[in-house]
């Protein structure tokens, strides 16, 4: 068996993290049709909120996690209300929205660095307090199991939300054609605001889980966004299932890619996957 079980586990864990980022990103893209580059910073907001509430204020860790997820959601909701919605009302192009989101990402990243410094911080305790599980010779930590479980639950929850509720029908209608959705009486701006809240909250959760697994710094959002965007494009941008598929494909390609070659090629491999899809299957696996 050798290192194969560990490689598979590592790929699944990486895929689960990318899934959480890609899910929110795709949800927002589906409704708004623009690349929200500020999505990654929601992960940093979630992670730093937990650091602040749990480690500085000393709140219960579960309360801190709920507050962190909620804060990321509210920041996302606020960004839509105060920046993106006014731009959409002025019929701003997707390029303008993209540039605005880039500005938001840069500004929020700088604010986090000013408030908390750019030093790396970890949300977890010592290695000794971590529980380990062995699966077919591969080791997985308790935190990684929680990541895996969270990704599964969030995906199931989003699918249920989109396909079993009136809200989901409205989101899908907006995703198909916002103009028609508005004509048939859907309050599109209100629904998009909720979509921003949910998508950003999921990104916040991703940041919190990465904070427990590895740690956080103000740039965590950029690196997660980078992988989330690749996963979304590879899977089919705007498609929930596509995002999940793309995330796991990226996780496997990255980890198996450096099996026989040096680890420094990891990001290059991720880019190679992106370029391959952009050339040969630009609409992604799910071909939405």
């Amino acid at each position, binding site marked *: 068996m*050798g*290192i194969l079980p*560990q*490689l598979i586990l*590592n790929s699944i*864990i*990486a895929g689960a993290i990318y899934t959480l980022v890609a899910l929110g990103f795709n949800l927002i893209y589906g409704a708004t049709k623009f690349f929200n580059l500020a999505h990654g910073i929601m992960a940093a907001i979630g992670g730093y909120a937990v650091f602040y509430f749990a480690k500085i204020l000393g709140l219960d860790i579960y309360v801190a996690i709920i507050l962190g997820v909620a804060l990321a959601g509210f920041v996302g909701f606020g960004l839509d209300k105060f920046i993106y919605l006014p731009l959409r009302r002025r019929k701003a192009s997707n390029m303008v929205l993209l540039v605005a989101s880039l500005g938001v990402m840069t500004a929020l990243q700088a604010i986090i660095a000013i408030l908390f*410094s*750019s*030093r*790396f911080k970890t949300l977890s305790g010592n*290695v000794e307090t*971590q529980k*380990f599980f062995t699966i077919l010779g591969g*080791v997985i*930590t308790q935190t990684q199991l929680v990541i895996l479980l969270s990704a599964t639950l969030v995906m199931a929850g989003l699918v249920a939300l989109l396909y079993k509720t009136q809200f989901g029908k409205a989101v899908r209608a907006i995703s198909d054609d916002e103009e028609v959705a508005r004509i048939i009486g859907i309050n599109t701006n209100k629904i998009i605001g909720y979509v921003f809240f949910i998508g950003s909250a999921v990104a916040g959760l991703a940041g919190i889980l990465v904070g427990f697994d*590895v*740690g956080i*710094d103000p*740039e965590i959002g950029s*690196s997660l966004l980078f992988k989330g965007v690749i996963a979304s494009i590879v899977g089919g941008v705007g498609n929930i299932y596509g995002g999940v598929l793309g995330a796991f494909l990226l996780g496997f390609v990255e*980890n198996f890619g*450096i*099996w026989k070659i*040096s*680890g*420094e090629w*990891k*990001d290059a491999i991720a880019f190679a996957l992106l370029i391959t899809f952009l050339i040969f299957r630009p609409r992604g696996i799910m071909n939405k």
Partner: protein
Amino acid sequence: MAVVVVTIGYFVLRGPSEISAETIKIGVIAPMTGDLAFMGEGIRDAILIAKENMGNTKNRYEVIFEDDQLDAKMSASAANKLLSIDKVDAFVTFSSVTGNVVAPIAEQNKAVHFGIASDLNVAKGKYNFIHWTPPSEENKVLIVELQRRGIRKLGIFKGNAPGAIAVIDDLKEQLKGTDIEVVTEQVFNSGEKDFRTIIAKSKDSGSEIYLLLAFSPELEILVKQMREAGITTPITSIENFEMSEQLDLFEGEWYVNSADPTADFINKFNAKTDKSPTLGAANAYDIFNLIVAANEKVEGVSKPTSDQVVTELMKITNFSGALGNLSVNEDGIIVSKAAVRIIKDGKPVTVGN
């Protein structure tokens, strides 16, 4: 008329030492914020101690500190700012990353540059110097210690950085002809946080010890993930353990470092900061004193040129510094010795030179 008389009188009457007083500006680029801020602060404190203790000089000396967070882009912008706005005469940089960025800028602008760096490329050119224990010295000590402990199989984890590359290239060269074999060598990029796959690749390599060459926070994350993967093999490093604030992570592990500073420097540093000197602090202290000594030796009343300062620096032998008696070799490198240290009760302790 009165103003003219007073002005002429001022210049005629003031002493010769005042006439020659020129301000030599030294720009220091080091991480003052971020994960390695504690090291930048150590370098700043050491230079300030040197400045406070320099005594009477014919020139005035001004030090300007710039933060680069050990980011090459920020290093370049800091160097350009120091040159164009502050008009510095000399640079002091910390790390091979920063040194490699500033060396060509210093060379092009004929500014003296001292790097606290492992990569010998930093000393390339007329105006560039290094004051750091070179990889060859550190590797010599590492190999002797590995042999003394009967270690034959070495695993390596290294960040893709100029300093680490220079150290490993030299180590491989020195290992030729010994019975020590590198059984796995894993490389990762700066900023990497997920080391699990490269750890899995090296797990069954049969390494008897792992040599870790990484900066903070990659170093701490790597060690944490190695422990999570169930690796209990000893770890060692060249310098990098002391670039971390979490020394308890390396409790009981030995490593190679530059030799201990003198007791005099340790006392001065401790008196000013209430702390032990950080890695590179003694080098920074020496560099400031060397730049001052070279500038002071230049004869004449006008401001020394960089060429004159370089000439004086190249003449320096047996200079009494914080790291012992220092000499500048023909490559512009000040060779200092390495030592074996161990982390004991969360503190570095020298166990052998």
